[in-house]
């Protein structure tokens, strides 16, 4: 397996970004990637796990609330606890919050509208497994597509995220400034992505897998997803 990184993209009932992620990883980035069914119970064969976007279980009760009880979740917990990289995109972010692998919750967009457009995010943390060779403050142009993307935690939770450096990215304008006008959903402190304390589990509201080919209007998503290559070299470090 040396040098070959194998990525699991988990398909939940209602996932719709799974094939996008698979295509992006296999065709655009050249990683060996597989769709893994939500009933699977073992992820030992993989070097990275992606929880894709979509509407798992039809968003019943709350987005991500039911996916948390999927048969695959114990394997995802074990994978994450082992310091291996896990990325939750959009609905995947919601699932990670509901599963308490990430703190906080995602609320309905402030506007009540489903937002589907390009955003800019500014990278705030370059120690997470998914941002570590980016420069701090780098601006990425990525699309969002969500109805429930307003990150929320209480004041103590936000203070903790900030002091631990768990805020991975915030929405910004084209100049890289954080302002309300660039915040598409009313997210607390403009948060677009956070990590766990260790830095190996990241939840990201925008879609890097929909921006890895100039044919679809942008390639900045590569700069997140290419981090799978780092895992390949076994250079993964757990920050505690």
């Amino acid at each position, binding site marked *: 397996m040396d040098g070959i990184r194998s990525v699991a993209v988990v398909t939940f009932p209602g996932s719709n970004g799974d094939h996008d992620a698979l295509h992006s990883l296999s065709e655009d980035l050249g990683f060996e990637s597989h769709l893994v069914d939500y009933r699977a119970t073992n992820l030992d064969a993989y070097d990275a796990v992606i929880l894709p976007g979509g509407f798992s279980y039809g968003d019943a*009760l709350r987005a991500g*609330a039911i996916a948390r009880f999927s048969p695959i979740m114990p394997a995802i917990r074990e994978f994450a606890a082992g310091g291996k990289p896990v990325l939750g995109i959009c609905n995947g972010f919601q699932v990670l919050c509901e599963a308490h692998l990430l703190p*906080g919750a995602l609320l*309905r967009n*402030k506007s*009540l509208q489903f937002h589907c457009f390009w955003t800019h995010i500014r990278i705030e943390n370059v120690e997470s497994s998914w941002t570590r060779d980016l420069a701090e403050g780098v601006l990425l142009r990525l699309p969002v597509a969500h109805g429930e993307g307003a990150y*929320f935690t*209480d004041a103590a939770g936000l203070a903790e995220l900030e002091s631990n450096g768990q805020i991975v990215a915030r929405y910004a304008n084209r100049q890289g400034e954080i302002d309300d006008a660039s915040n598409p959903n*009313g997210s607390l402190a403009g948060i677009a992505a956070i990590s766990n304390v260790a830095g190996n589990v990241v939840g990201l509201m925008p879609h890097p897998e929909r921006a890895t080919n100039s044919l679809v209007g942008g390639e900045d998503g590569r700069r997140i997803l290419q981090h799978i290559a780092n895992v390949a070299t076994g250079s993964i470090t757990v920050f505690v």
Partner: protein
Amino acid sequence: MSDITWTVDVLVMPKEGVNDPQGDAVRSGLQSLGFKTTWKVRVGNRITVEVTAADETAALEIGNQMCQQLLANPVIEQYSITAKPTGGE
């Protein structure tokens, strides 16, 4: 005393201080209809669950466990629970 069926009635509401854009939208709808004295609207979920339990305390505790583990997200929601014998008055 044998176990009977209880209807556990769970009301889940957004916590104070948590944005509720749905409630805000309903409020502005009510104001457009002429309900000018409407100042605040909050929208939540009501969930009813039928369970078997020995008594009301046990039924409420089952409801509480369900809320803690699934029915409510304590980060953003608060809940209240009542229980009555199913089909009773």
